């Protein structure tokens, strides 16, 4: 819904649990709006169709879940190298391999650290509610178009299958740079438009890469988003993203009722990571508890971001059936590290 509100009219995908609701919805809605829905022969084909549509100047998207996202990595690297915008929704499932279909945050590294070859970044957004799925979908398209960096919406089967109230705010299109780089056919232009990622000239590729990294720096400066809850007087800062943050919020309010001064720092943009927010909060509060539904991934970025004298603790479980923590389980962890 967010995608359609944002004017996305091109969807290319392939069925995989637990995200098949997205292609099912798009296959019904897009043809009515004069858009294009293609169920591709593979994840590889669908990301490349997105590459083609994006190179043509259209706002398009694909969606998948972990094993399918692995297959898309080649295309993502090419899109990053060719500076093509586009939205990729990853409703994460548990791995490695075929793993399982349960909620997981096991693909933080894959999403945030590049995933494919060549040392690029995606813009990575982590919604923790249905409302944010909607809002961040729209934001993802806008940021992606503004920076010409592909954007990934990283959810899991809890967020992906959740039913809750949603206010579908009408889309207010921001002012975005014209897509004057897109292929359209020359149409009388004297110069060609070429969308490519091959740079063989002397120094050409290095310059291209520095330019990409300059954009990543701008993203870090301008586009970091996070939510802070009860941080001002916190003696322990809990950090978590996505569905885990949702459970952590409940645990924190339980802890507050017990008189424990606990706050939450929830990264919404995983790339760019809220490095400065962690540095700022740990200038005062020296205890951090990072909770993830994996064996420890985002915690590495937390450790890199906090002040040197802060203690970063981790609580997490590898994804799989029954590994979703309860608020009580997290409360116990909060009590444990609060005392330390």
């Amino acid at each position, binding site marked *: 819904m967010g995608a359609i509100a944002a004017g996305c009219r091109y969807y290319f995908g392939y069925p995989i649990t637990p995200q098949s609701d997205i292609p099912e919805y798009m296959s019904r809605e897009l043809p009515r709006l004069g858009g*294009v829905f293609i169920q591709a022969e593979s994840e590889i084909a669908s990301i490349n169709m997105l590459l083609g549509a994006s190179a043509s100047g259209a706002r398009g998207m694909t969606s998948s879940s972990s094993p399918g996202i692995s297959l898309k990595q080649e295309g993502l690297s090419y899109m990053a190298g060719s500076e093509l915008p586009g939205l990729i929704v990853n409703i994460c499932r548990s791995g490695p391999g075929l793993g399982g279909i349960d909620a997981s945050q096991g693909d933080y590294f894959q999403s945030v650290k590049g995933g494919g070859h060549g040392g690029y970044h995606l813009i990575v957004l982590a919604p923790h509610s249905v409302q944010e799925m909607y809002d961040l979908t729209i934001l993802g398209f806008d940021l992606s178009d503004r920076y010409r960096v592909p954007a990934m919406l990283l959810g899991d089967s809890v967020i992906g299958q959740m039913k809750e109230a949603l206010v579908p705010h009408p889309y207010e299109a921001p002012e975005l740079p014209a897509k004057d780089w897109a292929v359209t056919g020359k149409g009388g232009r004297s110069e060609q*438009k070429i969308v*490519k990622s091959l740079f063989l000239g002397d120094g050409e590729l290095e310059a291209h890469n520095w330019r990409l990294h300059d954009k990543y720096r701008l993203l870090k400066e301008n586009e970091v988003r996070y939510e802070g809850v009860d941080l001002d007087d916190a003696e322990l800062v809990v950090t978590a993203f996505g569905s885990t943050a949702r459970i952590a919020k409940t645990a924190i309010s339980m802890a507050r009722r017990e008189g424990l001064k606990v706050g939450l720092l929830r990264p919404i943009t995983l790339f760019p990571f809220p490095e400065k927010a962690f540095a700022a909060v740990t200038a005062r509060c020296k205890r951090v508890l990072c909770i993830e539904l994996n064996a420890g991934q985002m915690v590495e970025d937390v450790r890199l971001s906090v002040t040197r004298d802060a203690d970063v603790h981790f609580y997490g479980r590898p994804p799989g059936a029954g590994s979703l923590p309860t608020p009580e389980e997290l409360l116990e962890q909060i009590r444990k590290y609060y005392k330390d």
Partner: protein
Amino acid sequence: MNEPMEKVFGHPVSLKNVQTHFCPGCQHGTIHRLVAEAIDHFGVQQRTIGVASVGCSVFLYGYFDIDVVEAPHGRAPAVATGVKRVHQDRIVFTYQGDGDLAAIGTSEIIHAANRGEKMTVIFVNNTTYGMTGGQMAPTTLPGQRTVTSPYGRDVGVDGYPIRMAELLSVLEGTAYVARVAVNSPKNLLQAGKVIRRAFEYQVENRGFSFVEVLSACPTNWGMNPLKANERVESEMIPYFHLGTFKDIAG
């Protein structure tokens, strides 16, 4: 009495007047020209978008004066699908080699053809991976020596050369499928006609058109251009028969 003379032959407008990087005797340059002539014939240069593949043909944008998207290895038909679905009134073609189209990109070509994407595919078959240095391709002939089949292609181990044109012609989604060669004046003239017809199918919005072009790779075959050209006739054409395998217009 000074009637202006009609210009009957010239450099194609769609082709830049530059020297190619291709090896001596390579037929990519010839095939590029035939494609450019077809684009010029229909006057569609200003609304044509090319999709380049990975291999010797990756520099498509350096030779054609048109808009070009570069696709990952084998994925050109999927990329072209995205382009054509956005720009339905433009002419979209891919230009792919045999490693690209018939090995790593088999899935993409079969499904783009099967969907009947209204695009044109130019498939250059020279029985080897050219750019990477002459390795065995899916089209390498039985017994042919390459750097990864040093004892000759053993069909018992490596399987058989794939006849892509025949394979695609049986799909309901294809409108026009043909194979040509450019090794003789006669074949060259025929190849020009066939490539033009393939673009005609797209100009008329009739469906998916595919032309396989047999091509010489003297460098990787270890032959001089003349011998390589003879090999096209004596070894390739007997296995990869020339002709039209599908034409929905009859």
